[in-house]
């Protein structure tokens, strides 16, 4: 009931606000897609990635190239590019499956930066200038406009949310949590840690690439500056703010993070906006982890129950 209500309010949003806030709303949906994937990876399976910007880039460049070079329609280009992102994610996850602690972080960080170098060097990917996306005429049977794109993103986020919360509420979610907390126990009941760790990596890479394709279309271009190491850390800051215990935390974190960042930046800061983004995500990481490692979701649970049940990491 509540979900239906929220859904209809969000669907009515385009007719209530101006173009700027519609753009911010679309941006929030894209952040939510990435954050849900990061939440599966970090909160559920207990792994870390500092290279997720690379998967976002795969989605962005992949969708753009499939549309521009092969003339594919947007939706199929987006889907295929995202599946490709998921495949690369599975490979990286497989590479890092036995790694603990800083090793996985360093490996994914190097992966992200290596991909960025590749973007800057490849002629076919526009080198440091990036690529301009061909304009979109229609999206999922609707003529393209910022409003229809916003509605498309809303639908996509809703779909992914329902899908994720269903599979995470069942066998897959339990297996991931068990690997995170008690890997020996997981193996004793027939759970293959390798399979599920790689699965979580692939799933979150798929969602990042999905978000990347949408982001590219929203901006109208794909540029290497949008996929730096700092972006990967920012994705991390978003889930840390929201809390990693549940994908609801990721949704909350993404919405709040983007909203506050935009608000604060326009009021406080007069320098280049990248610097503010860095300061903001750095500050969020330090503050939340020192004060309330469970993030907003952990705070909510603490408030609802006398004893917190979720663990931060």
């Amino acid at each position, binding site marked *: 009931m509540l979900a239906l209500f929220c859904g209809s309010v969000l669907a009515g949003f385009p007719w209530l606000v101006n173009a700027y806030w519609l753009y911010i709303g679309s941006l929030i949906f894209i952040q939510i897609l990435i954050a849900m994937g990061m939440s599966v990876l970090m909160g559920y399976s207990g792994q870390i990635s500092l290279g997720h910007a690379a998967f976002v880039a795969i989605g962005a460049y992949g969708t753009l190239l499939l549309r521009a070079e092969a003339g594919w329609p947007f939706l199929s280009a987006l889907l295929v590019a995202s599946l490709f992102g998921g495949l690369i994610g599975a490979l990286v996850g497989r590479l890092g499956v036995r790694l603990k602690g800083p090793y996985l972080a360093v490996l994914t960080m*190097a992966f992200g930066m290596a991909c960025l*170098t590749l973007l800057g060097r490849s002629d076919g990917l526009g080198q440091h200038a990036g690529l301009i996306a061909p304009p979109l005429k229609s999206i999922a049977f609707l003529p393209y406009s910022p409003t229809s794109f916003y509605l498309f993103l809303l639908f996509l986020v809703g779909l992914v949310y329902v899908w994720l919360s269903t599979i995470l509420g069942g066998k897959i979610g339990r297996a991931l949590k068990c690997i995170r907390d008690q890997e020996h126990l997981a193996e004793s009941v027939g759970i293959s840690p390798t399979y599920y760790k790689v699965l979580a990596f692939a799933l979150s890479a798929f969602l990042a690439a999905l978000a990347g394709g949408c982001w590219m279309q929203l901006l109208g271009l794909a540029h290497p500056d949008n996929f730096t190491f*700092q972006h990967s850390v920012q994705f991390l800051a978003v889930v840390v703010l929201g809390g990693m215990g549940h994908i609801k935390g990721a949704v909350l974190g993404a919405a709040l993070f983007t909203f506050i960042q935009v608000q604060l930046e326009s009021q406080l800061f007069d320098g280049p906006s990248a*610097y503010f983004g*860095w300061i903001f995500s750095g500050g969020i*990481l330090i503050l939340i*982890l020192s004060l309330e490692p469970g993030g907003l979701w952990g705070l909510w649970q603490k408030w609802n129950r006398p004893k917190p049940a979720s663990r931060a*990491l």
Partner: protein
Amino acid sequence: MMLYLLINGLAFGSIYALLALAMSITYKSTDIANFAQGELAMFSTYIFFSGLLLWPQGFWLLLILMLAFNFFGGFLLQKGIPTSSSKVSMIITLGLQMLLLGCAGWLWGPEPRHLPLPFEAGSVWFEEEGLALSSYHLWNLLSAGLLLGGLFLLMRNTSLGLAIQATQQHPESAASLGLNTQRIKAIAFGLSALTGGLAGMLAAPLTPLEPTMMWNNLLMGFAAAVWGGFRSLKGAVLAGYCLGMLKNLLAYYLSPDLDAMLAFGLIALVLLWRPQGIWGAKQVRNL
């Protein structure tokens, strides 16, 4: 030609070696992988730069002041980071990295600066095919070598060094011997910040002083630390120097912007081959 490439590579290598050593010291004594190591160095180099603008003659005094400042900064940093879980601490250092990056960009702007050295950087003592080795290389190699030598002497021959080693290897028994392990950990953090800080000052003439100057250096430092298994100080230093030469050869014969790819390739290689690092001890399944 080859000589030039190798010596210039060693100059890069001493930056990587110092960074890798700094990271290994921190990780070994506190289990924290410090992602802010490079940006701490960058920030302190900027402060050093601002000091030099105010007082151009005071290079050496300011240098010593900066190293001391770094030491105390690291000391305080260790006190400030919550240590409940090493993963949380690691992510906090990531946050610190972003914060320092943003603040440096905000305070000093994105334009590259030139860090003045008190001696003629152009005074060439070796030249071939337009490639020159300057007194800068000498300064780089000497100061890195001095610091590394000093650190190894400190670790091996002084009671402080022995206390740090004891804390790294058996924190519980070190504490039961009456050592103040918290303070020793903070001192180790301070030493690592000092080491990393010097890396920043050596890097500034090689790559111009700008907020993003340590991105690639940090990655290469990590690659070297991973090769040393994050726990072998000697391994980290050795790997750092090798990496510097390798990078320079690659830059000359292939392309100068392959740092990240080289680092990724090397990290992936070592993790596939020996996940505990070349010099690291094998982990045993803990039931």
